[in-house]
């Protein structure tokens, strides 16, 4: 029988409480049931496998031909696709098959790197904003709001004009304002989770702020964070292609899909394959990421719409 007074005293950190807290805060069931939902989503799985194939070809593709992406053959200009040049050649006689898979490396690298940087800055900023005091949070989110209201692509274009073209500068330009969506989503999720009982329970058991943040709040926000990352990658890939198409992207002889499409545009009437292949792969890549991202969202975060 417990006496009434002890109910109001905080619990002592006994072994038993320790054990309860050691158990994974996110139930396995969340990830497993989400995975099951994802696997039964045919569109998402198609996107997933298409991405695997694309990644594989980006690694292996350039070595399947005897040509390099920069080697020119001036007597073999603008050839249509054949058994020798699978995707044809461009105006300098370079093999398009090799160039397309080199381009895949550039595009995927830029997309994934930009998303990782967005993820790190965004989660950090969002989590910080959600855990500091009201005043600081207000200021942080106002700053984010203002940055957010500036049209993304315009800022990126301006930055590219100023800092010059190149892969690193593209990634910098894409991430300078790109992290804000991630920060807002992380903050929103954490604010919601904070009100839930299991967080209150962890706090009342004496878990430190950092512990609550890193082992309870962020893991539980992971679903939305992963979905956002998957949907950030195609945005970044699109932005890179768009910039390169406008002549602000990577420099020759390196080619991304955007620069190849831009080079192929004037030749559209007579040599359509020069535009067709890079354009098709930009679309396929974005499509796969969007299909996978949609599926992940339905599986792990049905509330987060679009």
């Amino acid at each position, binding site marked *: 029988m417990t006496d009434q007074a002890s109910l109001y005293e905080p619990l002592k950190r006994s072994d038993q409480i320790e054990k309860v807290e050691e158990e994974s805060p996110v139930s396995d069931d969340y990830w497993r049931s989400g995975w099951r939902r994802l696997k039964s989503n045919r569109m998402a799985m198609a996107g997933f496998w298409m991405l695997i194939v694309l990644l594989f070809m980006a690694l292996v593709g350039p070595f399947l031909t005897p040509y390099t992406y920069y080697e020119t053959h001036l007597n073999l200009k603008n050839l249509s696709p054949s058994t020798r040049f699978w995707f044809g050649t461009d105006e300098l006689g370079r093999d398009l098959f090799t160039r397309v898979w080199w381009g895949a490396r550039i595009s995927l690298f830029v997309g994934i790197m930009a998303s990782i940087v967005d993820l790190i800055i965004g989660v950090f900023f969002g989590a910080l904003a959600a855990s500091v005091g009201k005043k600081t949070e207000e200021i942080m989110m106002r700053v984010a709001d*203002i940055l957010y209201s500036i049209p993304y692509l*315009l800022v990126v274009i301006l930055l590219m004009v100023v800092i010059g073209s190149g892969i690193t500068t593209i990634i910098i330009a894409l991430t300078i304002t790109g992290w804000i969506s991630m920060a807002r989503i992380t903050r929103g999720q954490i604010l919601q989770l904070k009100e839930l009982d299991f967080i209150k329970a962890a706090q009342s058991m004496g878990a430190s702020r950092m512990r609550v943040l890193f082992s309870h709040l962020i893991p539980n926000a992971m679903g939305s964070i992963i979905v956002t990352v998957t949907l950030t990658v195609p945005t970044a890939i699109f932005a890179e*292609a768009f910039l390169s198409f*406008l*002549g602000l992207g990577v420099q020759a002889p390196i080619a991304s899909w955007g620069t190849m499409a831009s080079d192929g545009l004037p030749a559209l009437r007579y040599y359509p394959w020069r535009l067709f292949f890079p354009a098709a792969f930009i*679309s396929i890549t974005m*499509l796969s990421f969007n299909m996978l991202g949609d599926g992940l969202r339905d599986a792990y975060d049905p509330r987060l719409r679009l």
Partner: protein
Amino acid sequence: MIKYIVKKVLILLVSLFAVATLTFALMQAIPGDPFTEEKAVPEEILKAMYHHYGLDLPWYQQYFRYMKGLITWDLGPSFKYQGRTVTEIIKEGFPVSMVLGVEALAISIFAGISLGSLSALKHGKWQDRLMMVIAVLGISVPSFILATFLQYLFGMKLDWLPVARWGTVSHSILPALSLAALPMAFIARLTRSNMVEIMQQDYIHTAKSKGLNSFSIIYRHCLRNALLPIITYLGPLTTAILTGSFAVEKIFGIPGLGQWFVMSITNRDYTVIMGTTVFYSAILMVSVFIVDILYTVVDPRIKLVTKKVIL
């Protein structure tokens, strides 16, 4: 409500100021100046040119002049096109871009709502699944790729529509379609998910049990409520159409502001880049602002959160 609007106006003003300052700072950060490329210009002429464009002043005076110019709608001369001012260029190019943009927006809203509600009515059937595939395609295929595809197919191969240039309505069909695809897919998805949700609400069951015909249930009860949230996305969708126009106008050779913007980037015509960026930002921010206000007026129940589409 008033408090909300005042807060929004303040944020808008601060954002506009931030964009203008950021643009100025970035342009100042570029090494060299617009005349470094032109070789063998005598010292005196260079000095005279600096003086003419006010480039010999210290940066804070330049900044002050620039801000004053923005307020009085005088964006300075173009560096590359002798005797033309940025204001003139905007005046000339913007109407063309606006016609194209409004056309694209109209197509996307009309087609998006029709497709979305159709697929909601056929929820789970093959029409619905087909629609969702089309929508994810529309979101994934960038406008500049769709533009080249349409140009090749309908302009060059089938010869149904003009390949490029600007003038008659038929010139605007292909560019408007390529710009409309992404917003259309977006609106369709949104309409569909909202409709599906609403059709399970009690008041729809009530309407059905009262014996209303399905037409009036769909139009008077479902669609109206499903369309409300779409208003929030009109701001970001305008952004998508506007930025898309940079590439689409280049592809179709349309003499709009987007084409000018891209050309000024290639030419490193800094005053035009600066002026156009600030102009675009202002337009986009104001339209997002109007949409926000409109939404609270139309539906006072919902507390606003601004959302962002890709771009």
